[in-house]
């Protein structure tokens, strides 16, 4: 097949310089756009336009990187090692669970509580618990593994189940059983989808490892280096570390991409779902039973983990099992009850979270529209937005604080920076899928580009907007927590930090559980809104 592709490329040789220019116009424009952005950044850095010089110029960052280079190899090795181990461990579990869920339908329902929890929980909330529970590199590996799990699990299930039913019939027709369909159809079909999932999971593993490094006090790793460097008041160094972390993420991503290309060729994962994935054959009673088990399962896992840790000698002073925590929540022994402390903090955090979510979505929508109107601009801005995703926020916080102060503006800025990218990707995908015929319809009748967007693109992408909101809800909560922890000193983010500082482990557990619970509820609330909206407009949910 590749032979034929190459052949056809050869025959399509451009015939004139003019054609050549047209063919290369787009990449050229994009490259020029990047250069212009870099130049602007350089000038802004040199002239100290931003925040009194707190934004270093690219040349300054590179220069500092060269000067510091002898420090880097050890930290890079540690970060790569822990994220790689976490990546392997998380994927192993994810693929096994994916297999289970694909081959035994009720498993999906039973595990849904655990899966939603793992997807929605804010990783920084989990860090203190992991550091209590594990030692050495283990918290970093664990957080990297947890951050890897969800995308891989989803990809495995999708790959194994969304198979062309006709192919399955064919194998069965020839007398093949479950094994034969797995061997000849499902596994082959799952591989490209799985590799696409791994690509999303890889940068997650790096960020997970970095986040756990902030608290683990280990001697090596980029997160550790970042913290050691904070005290120098040298933004160029901080940006350098952030860029190296970003490069590692990008390296992971590219490695998987190349692996996928080499292994399964350019064959795109089939998105078509043929053959119903109906789960409706269950009785009402067994559905309710499944629901009850799926809600109880995360709690049981927590209980089991605490039990196991006590067995290996972790002091019960730092651990709380579910019943212990409930008892402590309503205990009257404290000067101020845990429920009122945590409730007060949540009352500060949740409104900002909702606001941040809306602004982040609006921002992503705006960028998606800009991307539709001017594809060049969209693709020029893309790497910049990728950067904000994998840069450890701690490196950028001094800058963000200097620009936006220490109030609501900073909370919104940080929340937007963690939410808008996934929202943008989803929305851009939706807008790209608008049928050209419908757009032509507006165009033929004399409608402007704006009318096209207003009348066709936006309504068409409604399911994608809903999917984006669902994706973004837990991240918005994470963003607000980070801002509160690093900049404003308010709400849940700050409470978690203060609770740890004062060794109040009851409060630590209460905050962690509350944060996870609120994230999950937020996610479920958005899902409900999505159902309602899509039902009203009779649309199918975005994949």
């Amino acid at each position, binding site marked *: 097949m590749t032979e034929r592709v190459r052949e056809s490329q050869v025959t399509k040789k451009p015939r004139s310089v003019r054609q050549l220019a047209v063919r290369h116009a787009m990449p050229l424009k994009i490259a020029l756009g990047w250069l212009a952005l870099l130049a602007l950044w350089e000038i802004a850095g040199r002239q100290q336009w931003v925040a009194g010089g707190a934004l270093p110029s690219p040349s300054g960052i590179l220069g500092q990187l060269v000067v510091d280079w002898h420090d880097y190899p050890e930290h890079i090795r540690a970060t790569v*090692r822990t994220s790689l181990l976490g990546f392997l461990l998380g994927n192993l579990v994810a693929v096994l669970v994916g297999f289970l869920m694909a081959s035994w339908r009720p498993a999906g329902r039973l595990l849904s509580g655990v899966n939603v929890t793992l997807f929605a929980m804010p990783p920084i909330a989990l860090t203190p618990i992991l550091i209590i529970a594990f030692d050495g590199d283990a918290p970093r590996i664990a957080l990297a*593994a947890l951050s890897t799990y969800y995308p891989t699990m989803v990809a495995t299930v999708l790959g194994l189940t969304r198979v062309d039913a006709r192919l399955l019939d064919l194998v069965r027709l020839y007398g093949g059983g479950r094994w034969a369909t797995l061997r000849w159809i499902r596994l082959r079909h799952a591989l490209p989808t799985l590799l696409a999932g791994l690509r999303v999971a890889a940068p997650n593993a790096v960020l997970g490892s970095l986040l756990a490094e902030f608290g683990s006090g280990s001697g090596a790793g980029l997160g550790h280096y970042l913290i*050691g460097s*904070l*005290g120098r*008041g040298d933004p160029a160094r901080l940006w350098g570390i952030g860029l190296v972390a970003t490069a590692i993420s990008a390296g992971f991503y590219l490695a998987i991409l190349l692996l996928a290309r080499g292994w399964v060729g350019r064959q795109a994962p089939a998105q078509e779902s043929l053959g119903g994935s109906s789960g409706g054959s269950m009785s009402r009673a067994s559905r309710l039973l499944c629901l009850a088990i799926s809600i109880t399962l995360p709690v049981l896992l927590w209980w089991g983990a605490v039990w196991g840790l006590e067995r290996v000698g972790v002091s019960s002073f730092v651990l709380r099992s579910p019943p212990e925590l409930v008892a402590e929540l309503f205990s009257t022994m404290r000067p101020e009850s845990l429920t009122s402390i945590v409730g007060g903090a949540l009352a500060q955090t949740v409104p900002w979270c909702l606001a941040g979510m809306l602004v982040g979505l609006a921002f992503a929508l705006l960028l998606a529209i800009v991307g539709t109107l001017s594809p060049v601009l969209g693709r020029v801005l893309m790497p910049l937005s990728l950067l904000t995703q994998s840069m450890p926020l701690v490196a950028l916080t001094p800058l963000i604080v200097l620009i936006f102060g220490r109030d609501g503006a900073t909370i919104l800025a940080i929340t937007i920076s963690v939410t808008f990218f996934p929202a943008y990707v989803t929305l851009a995908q939706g807008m790209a899928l608008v049928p050209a015929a419908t757009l032509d319809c507006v165009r033929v009748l004399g409608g402007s580009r704006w009318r096209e967007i207003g009348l066709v693109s936006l309504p068409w992408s409604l399911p994608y907007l809903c999917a984006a909101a669902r994706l973004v809800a837990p991240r918005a909560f994470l963003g607000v927590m980070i801002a509160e922890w690093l*900049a404003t000193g308010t709400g849940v983010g700050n409470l978690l930090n203060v609770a740890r500082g004062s060794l109040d482990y009851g409060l630590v557990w209460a905050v962690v559980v509350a944060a996870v619970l609120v994230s999950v509820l937020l996610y479920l609330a958005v899902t409900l809104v999505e159902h309602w909206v899509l039902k009203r407009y009779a649309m199918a949910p975005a994949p």
Partner: protein
Amino acid sequence: MTLSRRRFLQMTGSGVMAGALGWPALSMAQNGQGTPFAMQASWVNDAEFSGYFVAQRNGYYADEGLALDYRPGGPDVIPEGALLSNRAAVALTTVESTLKAVTQQGAPLVVIGTQYQKSPVGIVSLARTPIEKPEDLAGKVLAVPPVNRLAVEAMLAANGMSTDDVRIVPYAYDPTPLLKGEIDASLDFVTNVPYTIQLQGEDAVSFLLYDHGFPVFNDTLVVTRQTLENRRADLLAWLRASRRGWEENFQDPTRYPPLFADSFFAGNGRAIDNEIFFNQAQKPLIESPNGIFSMADADIARCVEALGRIGIDASTEHFDTSLLAELDA
């Protein structure tokens, strides 16, 4: 990165096992011969812990029959956590946090000595907008790490002020906001930040909380009651070796930091001159006529009284000087 197969298996083996089982013992470094003994420091490797580095380098712990596992700290590491999760025998802690946990949460911890006779925690500001005493803080923005918030409240209360008079924001140990004027002062070790500020072409002024209503120890040596009971000999050995390390270090505070450039201080992100500055500045705060780590009864009493003023109901019972007494005997 080239890895031999065996090395790779070693790494993956121990890491995955520890990750999967939460097995603390597996990932503990146990180098050298002797009784394994783990200490948890309160911060990343810098001059603050020079004495322990000297003792490691010169083999003082080995002389005492200990195989030391030195665990660095960091901004988010709570040293007492290492004691309570059974990962370290002794930890360097902030005394107000420890005794708050003891008195309010019932943590089974006890203070057996102190590294700093006078806590180096102070208020640092720029010389061109100086804050030289607590009263100057009125209406200003002060950045404070969450662990030290109680200390600031104590200092304000002792000077007839409260947290309503000052805007307190989180501090991430980055002097940039101070240098750019976004905050007016920050709470940090006065043995350290002024150097960084000088490096950036500014002058710093500072005052110690110790001298303004909060006379407490810092980097207190803390153990669990259980360790104090069961591992007396090991604790004595550790105290002896560590004291020897500090005494050697202060013979000439400029001598050792350069020797650690490629070992303990490697990759900590700071210049060796910074460590020398730190080591010199901390000498008068650590040394005591009664010997390094000692806790005089009068100083304990003042510490207890200061803690009482911020609602920590500490008492002299939380300090155990019996090991120090045995050390001197």
